[in-house]
């Protein structure tokens, strides 16, 4: 009997997993013993880290997109462009938007990523910009290009959110960008963060705080915006403070998937999983990787990438009747831009405090080079 592995979501986690699995199990797939299906609601993959550069006019949406059919090994995997509308973990069945028959599975991997939920904060949609989706990044690019004076506020509102380093990168890049344009004296920059320091990871917070002081970037902590007044251009917080802005760039609230909540797999749409095995806690033969998984680490592409490698190994063992041995240790890697021509780099696992390296132009080039070669990661090669 054929073992059916279904992967929902064609982002970093889904594409890496599909390619690693089909590579590892090619003999079993060719013999008809295993079938791997990747389901995605669009025919393309969008590489989200490009959005930060789109906001400064350095990249376009074209740079951030590739057809999934170019990324996935279609000799060994089925690619289904459809939207999953329901998950029945008892019957091991998915309902689909376009195909009434749906899809049965023996092993299900959820990798749908995270969605934005700006409506959770009244006034945010009308009063704020963001760079966490293509349309937002394009609108922000136009706004920044025309912004010559006033108060630029970057407010981290949504927690948890994708790419935890990106807000720090944005203000450091904006500082350099306005300096290059000779406008920095006319632009005040403020960065706000929900907890008592500038970042969730203490070493990154300490590093960023020092840079903010050097570069005249204001830092507001214990700042949790709960309302935006777009007419008065004021941010109001859970802590009872207010902040005026001329241009608000917000990290919007994020949400997981309704499919997850409706299937009883986790609260707020995040799949509750074992942090090492990536197995769902509330259903058998269900796994989650990437942003949709509730893991005690960053919602970052590298997490999806490395977790996908672990899960490919574990699933291959499962279908071969072996005891899975590989485990995910929380490995996370982030390049962090600290201006327009310098960057640093951190690497950590569960429980670690990373060391922030001295920023350099070489690391900036490394980040840009990785962004170009990312499509090899999506293909399961690096």
């Amino acid at each position, binding site marked *: 009997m054929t073992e059916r592995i279904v992967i929902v979501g064609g982002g970093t986690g889904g594409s890496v997993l599909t390619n690693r699995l089909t590579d590892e199990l090619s003999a079993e797939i060719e013999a008809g013993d295993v079938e791997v299906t990747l389901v995605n609601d669009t025919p393309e993959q969008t590489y989200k880290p490009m959005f930060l550069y789109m906001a400064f006019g350095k990249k376009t949406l074209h740079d951030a997109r590739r057809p999934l059919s170019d990324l996935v090994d279609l000799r060994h995997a089925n690619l289904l462009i459809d939207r999953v509308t329901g998950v029945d973990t008892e019957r091991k069945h998915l309902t689909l938007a376009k195909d009434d028959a749906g899809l049965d599975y023996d092993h299900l991997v959820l990798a749908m990523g995270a969605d934005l939920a700006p409506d*959770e904060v009244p006034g945010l949609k009308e009063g704020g910009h963001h760079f966490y989706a293509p349309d937002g990044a394009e609108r922000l690019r136009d706004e920044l290009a025309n912004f010559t004076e006033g108060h630029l506020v970057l407010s981290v509102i949504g*927690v*948890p*959110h994708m790419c*935890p380093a990106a807000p720090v990168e944005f203000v450091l890049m904006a500082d350099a960008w306005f300096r290059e344009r000779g406008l920095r004296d006319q632009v005040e920059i403020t960065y706000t963060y*929900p*907890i*008592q320091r500038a970042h*969730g*990871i203490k070493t990154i917070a300490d590093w960023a705080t020092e840079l903010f002081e050097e570069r005249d970037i204001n830092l507001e902590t*214990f700042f*949790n915006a*709960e309302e935006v007044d777009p007419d008065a251009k004021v941010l109001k917080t*859970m*802590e*009872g403070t207010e902040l005026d802005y001329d241009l608000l760039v917000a990290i919007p*609230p994020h949400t997981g998937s309704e499919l997850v909540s409706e299937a009883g797999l986790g609260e*707020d749409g995040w799949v509750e999983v074992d*942090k090492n095995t990536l197995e769902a806690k509330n259903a058998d033969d269900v796994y989650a990787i990437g942003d949709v998984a509730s893991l*005690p*680490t*960053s919602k970052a592409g590298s997490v999806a990438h490395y977790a996908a490698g672990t899960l490919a190994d574990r699933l291959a063992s499962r279908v071969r009747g072996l005891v899975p041995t590989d485990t995910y240790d*929380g490995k*996370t890697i982030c390049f962090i831009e600290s201006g327009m021509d310098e960057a640093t780099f951190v690497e*950590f*696992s*569960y*429980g*670690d*405090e990373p060391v922030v390296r001295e920023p350099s132009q070489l690391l900036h080039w490394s980040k840009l080079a990785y962004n170009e070669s990312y499509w090899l990661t999506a293909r399961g090669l690096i």
Partner: protein
Amino acid sequence: MSETIQPDVTVDSRGATCPGPLMDLIGKVKKVDAGTVIELQTTDSSSSHDVPEWVNKAGHEMLDIVEHEDEGFWSVFIETTK
């Protein structure tokens, strides 16, 4: 007795590196109604002062901090007021 506190919601942040237990708690507070008792489970010892500092600043109520020595984590109980 703190052992008798029955949370309405539990936030399991044990082992959290990023975004961290306090961020997980704030995210949950945003989503629940006033009067909700939340238990934050954390292995990060700094939560014992970070969390009360934010809870007081945001005007919620600290209920208790219970150390589970054998299991190596703390339960921080708060009640939302708004």
